[in-house]
Protein backbone atom coordinates (compact mmCIF):
# COMPACT_ATOMS: atom_id res chain seq x y z
CA UNK A 1 0.00 0.00 0.00
CA UNK A 2 1.15 3.55 -0.68
CA UNK A 3 3.02 4.86 2.30
CA UNK A 4 1.91 8.48 1.88
CA UNK A 5 -0.54 9.86 4.38
CA UNK A 6 -3.60 7.75 3.72
CA UNK A 7 -5.81 7.12 6.65
CA UNK A 8 -9.06 6.16 4.97
CA UNK A 9 -9.60 3.32 2.55
CA UNK A 10 -12.41 3.15 0.03
CA UNK A 11 -14.52 -0.01 -0.24
CA UNK A 12 -12.64 -0.93 -3.41
CA UNK A 13 -9.22 -0.51 -1.77
CA UNK A 14 -10.37 -2.48 1.24
CA UNK A 15 -11.73 -5.27 -0.93
CA UNK A 16 -8.35 -5.70 -2.60
CA UNK A 17 -6.96 -6.70 0.80
CA UNK A 18 -9.70 -9.20 1.62
CA UNK A 19 -7.68 -12.40 1.19
CA UNK A 20 -4.52 -11.10 2.83
CA UNK A 21 -6.54 -9.68 5.71
CA UNK A 22 -8.37 -12.88 6.58
CA UNK A 23 -5.08 -14.80 6.28
CA UNK A 24 -3.33 -12.31 8.60
CA UNK A 25 -0.78 -11.58 5.90
CA UNK A 26 -1.07 -7.78 5.95
CA UNK A 27 1.40 -5.47 7.63
CA UNK A 28 0.27 -4.05 10.95
CA UNK A 29 -0.42 -0.67 9.37
CA UNK A 30 -2.43 -2.06 6.44
CA UNK A 31 -4.34 -4.27 8.82
CA UNK A 32 -5.21 -1.23 10.93
CA UNK A 33 -6.47 0.65 7.87
CA UNK A 34 -8.62 -2.26 6.71
CA UNK A 35 -10.03 -2.74 10.19
CA UNK A 36 -10.79 0.95 10.43
CA UNK A 37 -12.83 0.74 7.22
CA UNK A 38 -14.61 -2.42 8.34
CA UNK A 39 -15.58 -0.72 11.60
CA UNK A 40 -17.59 1.88 9.71
CA UNK A 41 -18.75 -0.04 6.61
CA UNK A 42 -21.44 -2.65 7.21
CA UNK A 43 -21.39 -4.01 3.67
CA UNK A 44 -17.64 -4.65 3.56
CA UNK A 45 -17.76 -5.97 7.09
CA UNK A 46 -20.45 -8.52 6.13
CA UNK A 47 -18.48 -9.62 3.07
CA UNK A 48 -15.25 -10.03 5.04
CA UNK A 49 -16.93 -11.91 7.87
CA UNK A 50 -18.70 -14.25 5.46
CA UNK A 51 -15.49 -15.02 3.58
CA UNK A 52 -13.56 -15.63 6.82
CA UNK A 53 -16.36 -17.87 8.12
CA UNK A 54 -16.42 -19.99 4.96
CA UNK A 55 -12.70 -20.79 5.09
CA UNK A 56 -12.78 -21.31 8.83
CA UNK A 57 -15.57 -23.92 8.53
CA UNK A 58 -13.85 -25.62 5.58
CA UNK A 59 -10.60 -25.78 7.54
CA UNK A 60 -12.29 -27.20 10.64
CA UNK A 61 -14.01 -29.93 8.63
CA UNK A 62 -10.88 -30.93 6.74
CA UNK A 63 -8.72 -31.00 9.86
CA UNK A 64 -11.00 -33.65 11.36
CA UNK A 65 -9.53 -36.20 8.93
CA UNK A 66 -8.75 -39.43 10.75
CA UNK A 67 -5.54 -41.33 10.00
CA UNK A 68 -6.41 -44.95 9.11
CA UNK A 69 -5.00 -47.35 11.75
CA UNK A 70 -3.70 -49.52 8.88
CA UNK A 71 -1.35 -46.69 7.88
CA UNK A 72 0.22 -46.54 11.34
CA UNK A 73 0.75 -50.31 11.27
CA UNK A 74 2.28 -50.23 7.78
CA UNK A 75 4.61 -47.39 8.71
CA UNK A 76 5.77 -49.11 11.85
CA UNK A 77 6.52 -52.33 9.95
CA UNK A 78 8.33 -50.72 7.06
CA UNK A 79 10.50 -48.56 9.32
CA UNK A 80 11.45 -51.60 11.42
CA UNK A 81 12.32 -53.51 8.26
CA UNK A 82 14.61 -50.73 7.03
CA UNK A 83 16.28 -50.53 10.43
CA UNK A 84 16.86 -54.31 10.55
CA UNK A 85 18.14 -54.35 6.98
CA UNK A 86 20.59 -51.53 7.59
CA UNK A 87 21.75 -53.05 10.87
CA UNK A 88 22.36 -56.39 9.11
CA UNK A 89 24.49 -54.97 6.30
CA UNK A 90 26.71 -53.02 8.68
Amino acid at each position, binding site marked *: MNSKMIDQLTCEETFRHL*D*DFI*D*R*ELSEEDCRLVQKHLDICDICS*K*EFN*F*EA*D*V*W*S*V*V*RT*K*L*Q*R*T*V*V*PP*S*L*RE*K*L*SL*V*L*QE*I*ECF*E*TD*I*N
Partner: protein
Amino acid sequence: MGKANGTAKLFEAKLEPILGTAYGVALRLTRNPSDAEDLVQEAAVNSFCGFHTFESGTNFKAWFLRILTNAFYKRYHKKQNEPEMVDLEDDLMLYLYNRTCEAGLHCTSDNPAEILLRKMDAKQITTAIAELPVEYRVAAAFYFMEEFSYQEIADIIDCPVGTVRSRLHRGRKLLQKSLWQVAEEQGIVAEHSEAK
Protein backbone atom coordinates in the same frame (compact mmCIF):
# COMPACT_ATOMS: atom_id res chain seq x y z
CA MET B 1 25.32 -45.03 7.12
CA GLY B 2 23.64 -47.76 9.17
CA LYS B 3 20.97 -47.01 11.68
CA ALA B 4 21.41 -47.75 15.35
CA ASN B 5 18.82 -49.91 17.03
CA GLY B 6 15.88 -47.79 18.17
CA THR B 7 16.20 -45.19 15.41
CA ALA B 8 12.93 -46.40 13.88
CA LYS B 9 11.13 -45.89 17.19
CA LEU B 10 12.66 -42.44 17.58
CA PHE B 11 11.61 -41.53 14.06
CA GLU B 12 8.08 -42.87 14.60
CA ALA B 13 7.75 -40.77 17.75
CA LYS B 14 8.66 -37.65 15.75
CA LEU B 15 6.28 -38.60 12.95
CA GLU B 16 3.27 -39.42 15.11
CA PRO B 17 2.21 -35.84 16.04
CA ILE B 18 2.29 -34.73 12.40
CA LEU B 19 0.80 -37.85 10.83
CA GLY B 20 -2.72 -36.35 10.76
CA THR B 21 -1.52 -33.32 8.84
CA ALA B 22 0.63 -35.44 6.51
CA TYR B 23 -2.23 -37.83 5.70
CA GLY B 24 -4.71 -34.97 5.34
CA VAL B 25 -2.42 -33.17 2.90
CA ALA B 26 -1.74 -36.42 1.01
CA LEU B 27 -5.48 -37.08 0.75
CA ARG B 28 -6.09 -33.69 -0.83
CA LEU B 29 -3.14 -34.09 -3.19
CA THR B 30 -3.80 -37.63 -4.40
CA ARG B 31 -7.59 -37.48 -4.13
CA ASN B 32 -8.08 -40.97 -2.75
CA PRO B 33 -7.33 -42.73 0.57
CA SER B 34 -5.32 -45.61 -0.88
CA ASP B 35 -2.96 -43.35 -2.85
CA ALA B 36 -2.73 -41.03 0.17
CA GLU B 37 -1.53 -43.90 2.35
CA ASP B 38 1.02 -44.90 -0.29
CA LEU B 39 2.29 -41.34 -0.55
CA VAL B 40 2.71 -40.94 3.21
CA GLN B 41 4.48 -44.28 3.35
CA GLU B 42 6.82 -43.28 0.54
CA ALA B 43 7.56 -39.97 2.26
CA ALA B 44 8.19 -41.81 5.55
CA VAL B 45 10.63 -44.22 3.91
CA ASN B 46 12.45 -41.40 2.09
CA SER B 47 12.69 -39.26 5.19
CA PHE B 48 13.72 -42.14 7.43
CA CYS B 49 16.50 -43.05 5.00
CA GLY B 50 17.61 -39.42 5.01
CA PHE B 51 16.98 -38.88 8.73
CA HIS B 52 20.70 -38.28 9.30
CA THR B 53 20.38 -35.11 7.17
CA PHE B 54 17.66 -33.69 9.41
CA GLU B 55 19.12 -30.96 11.58
CA SER B 56 18.07 -31.47 15.16
CA GLY B 57 16.21 -28.46 16.53
CA THR B 58 14.79 -27.43 13.15
CA ASN B 59 11.19 -27.89 12.04
CA PHE B 60 10.58 -31.62 11.52
CA LYS B 61 7.06 -31.08 10.23
CA ALA B 62 8.19 -28.69 7.48
CA TRP B 63 11.07 -31.02 6.61
CA PHE B 64 8.79 -34.06 6.33
CA LEU B 65 6.10 -32.23 4.37
CA ARG B 66 8.72 -30.99 1.90
CA ILE B 67 9.74 -34.61 1.31
CA LEU B 68 6.10 -35.61 0.94
CA THR B 69 5.50 -32.85 -1.61
CA ASN B 70 8.56 -33.90 -3.62
CA ALA B 71 7.35 -37.51 -3.56
CA PHE B 72 3.94 -36.36 -4.81
CA TYR B 73 5.41 -34.46 -7.74
CA LYS B 74 7.76 -37.30 -8.60
CA ARG B 75 5.00 -39.87 -8.47
CA TYR B 76 2.06 -38.02 -9.97
CA HIS B 77 3.06 -34.75 -11.56
CA LYS B 78 6.15 -33.30 -13.03
CA LYS B 79 6.57 -30.01 -11.20
CA GLN B 80 5.75 -27.08 -13.41
CA ASN B 81 7.86 -23.97 -13.35
CA GLU B 82 4.92 -21.89 -14.44
CA PRO B 83 1.57 -22.34 -12.72
CA GLU B 84 -1.28 -23.50 -14.87
CA MET B 85 -2.92 -20.37 -16.14
CA VAL B 86 -6.54 -20.24 -15.19
CA ASP B 87 -8.83 -17.53 -16.41
CA LEU B 88 -10.93 -16.29 -13.56
CA GLU B 89 -14.32 -15.08 -14.62
CA ASP B 90 -15.38 -11.72 -13.21
CA ASP B 91 -18.36 -13.27 -11.50
CA LEU B 92 -16.05 -15.28 -9.24
CA MET B 93 -15.58 -12.22 -7.03
CA LEU B 94 -17.45 -12.96 -3.79
CA TYR B 95 -19.08 -15.86 -5.60
CA LEU B 96 -20.44 -17.65 -2.54
CA TYR B 97 -21.41 -14.41 -0.83
CA ASN B 98 -23.44 -13.31 -3.83
CA ARG B 99 -25.07 -16.72 -4.40
CA THR B 100 -26.02 -17.08 -0.72
CA CYS B 101 -27.44 -13.53 -0.74
CA GLU B 102 -29.56 -14.40 -3.79
CA ALA B 103 -30.73 -17.57 -2.05
CA GLY B 104 -31.81 -15.56 0.98
CA LEU B 105 -29.41 -17.18 3.44
CA HIS B 106 -28.26 -13.82 4.78
CA CYS B 107 -31.80 -12.74 5.68
CA THR B 108 -32.51 -15.73 7.88
CA SER B 109 -29.21 -16.44 9.60
CA ASP B 110 -26.43 -14.60 11.38
CA ASN B 111 -24.03 -17.19 10.03
CA PRO B 112 -24.94 -17.99 6.41
CA ALA B 113 -21.52 -19.61 5.82
CA GLU B 114 -22.27 -22.18 8.48
CA ILE B 115 -25.75 -22.86 7.01
CA LEU B 116 -24.18 -23.37 3.61
CA LEU B 117 -21.44 -25.73 4.77
CA ARG B 118 -23.18 -27.46 7.68
CA LYS B 119 -24.26 -30.50 5.72
CA MET B 120 -21.14 -30.82 3.61
CA ASP B 121 -18.69 -33.41 4.84
CA ALA B 122 -14.92 -33.45 4.43
CA LYS B 123 -15.24 -35.87 1.51
CA GLN B 124 -17.44 -33.49 -0.47
CA ILE B 125 -15.11 -30.58 0.25
CA THR B 126 -12.15 -32.75 -0.76
CA THR B 127 -13.90 -33.51 -4.05
CA ALA B 128 -14.34 -29.78 -4.64
CA ILE B 129 -10.64 -29.17 -3.91
CA ALA B 130 -9.76 -32.07 -6.22
CA GLU B 131 -11.15 -30.10 -9.14
CA LEU B 132 -8.55 -27.36 -8.71
CA PRO B 133 -5.52 -27.31 -11.03
CA VAL B 134 -2.69 -29.26 -9.38
CA GLU B 135 -0.53 -26.27 -8.33
CA TYR B 136 -3.53 -24.59 -6.71
CA ARG B 137 -4.50 -27.85 -5.05
CA VAL B 138 -1.05 -28.26 -3.50
CA ALA B 139 -1.15 -24.75 -1.99
CA ALA B 140 -4.74 -25.26 -0.81
CA ALA B 141 -3.92 -28.61 0.82
CA PHE B 142 -1.30 -27.01 3.06
CA TYR B 143 -3.43 -23.92 3.68
CA PHE B 144 -6.43 -25.88 4.92
CA MET B 145 -4.67 -28.61 6.87
CA GLU B 146 -2.56 -26.28 9.02
CA GLU B 147 -2.39 -22.65 10.02
CA PHE B 148 0.69 -22.17 7.86
CA SER B 149 1.70 -18.68 6.79
CA TYR B 150 2.23 -18.04 3.07
CA GLN B 151 5.99 -18.02 3.74
CA GLU B 152 5.85 -21.41 5.46
CA ILE B 153 3.91 -22.89 2.53
CA ALA B 154 6.41 -21.32 0.12
CA ASP B 155 9.29 -22.94 2.01
CA ILE B 156 7.60 -26.35 1.96
CA ILE B 157 6.64 -26.37 -1.71
CA ASP B 158 9.78 -24.52 -2.73
CA CYS B 159 8.38 -21.57 -4.65
CA PRO B 160 8.24 -17.79 -4.15
CA VAL B 161 5.83 -16.44 -1.54
CA GLY B 162 4.11 -14.28 -4.18
CA THR B 163 3.31 -17.43 -6.16
CA VAL B 164 1.78 -19.05 -3.07
CA ARG B 165 -0.32 -15.94 -2.46
CA SER B 166 -1.57 -15.89 -6.04
CA ARG B 167 -2.34 -19.63 -6.10
CA LEU B 168 -4.22 -19.46 -2.81
CA HIS B 169 -6.26 -16.41 -3.70
CA ARG B 170 -7.16 -17.70 -7.16
CA GLY B 171 -7.67 -21.24 -5.93
CA ARG B 172 -10.13 -20.12 -3.30
CA LYS B 173 -12.13 -18.18 -5.87
CA LEU B 174 -12.39 -21.30 -8.02
CA LEU B 175 -13.19 -23.40 -4.98
CA GLN B 176 -16.16 -21.18 -4.11
CA LYS B 177 -17.84 -22.10 -7.36
CA SER B 178 -17.28 -25.82 -6.77
CA LEU B 179 -18.61 -25.57 -3.21
CA TRP B 180 -21.74 -23.85 -4.46
CA GLN B 181 -22.28 -26.66 -6.95
CA VAL B 182 -21.98 -29.19 -4.11
CA ALA B 183 -24.49 -27.18 -2.06
CA GLU B 184 -26.93 -27.16 -4.95
CA GLU B 185 -26.46 -30.87 -5.70
CA GLN B 186 -26.97 -31.71 -2.04
CA GLY B 187 -30.15 -29.68 -1.97
CA ILE B 188 -28.76 -27.56 0.88
CA VAL B 189 -29.88 -24.30 -0.69
CA ALA B 190 -33.32 -25.54 -1.75
CA GLU B 191 -33.89 -27.10 1.66
CA HIS B 192 -33.07 -23.84 3.39
CA SER B 193 -35.32 -21.84 1.05
CA GLU B 194 -38.23 -24.18 1.72
CA ALA B 195 -37.67 -23.94 5.47
CA LYS B 196 -38.01 -20.17 5.42
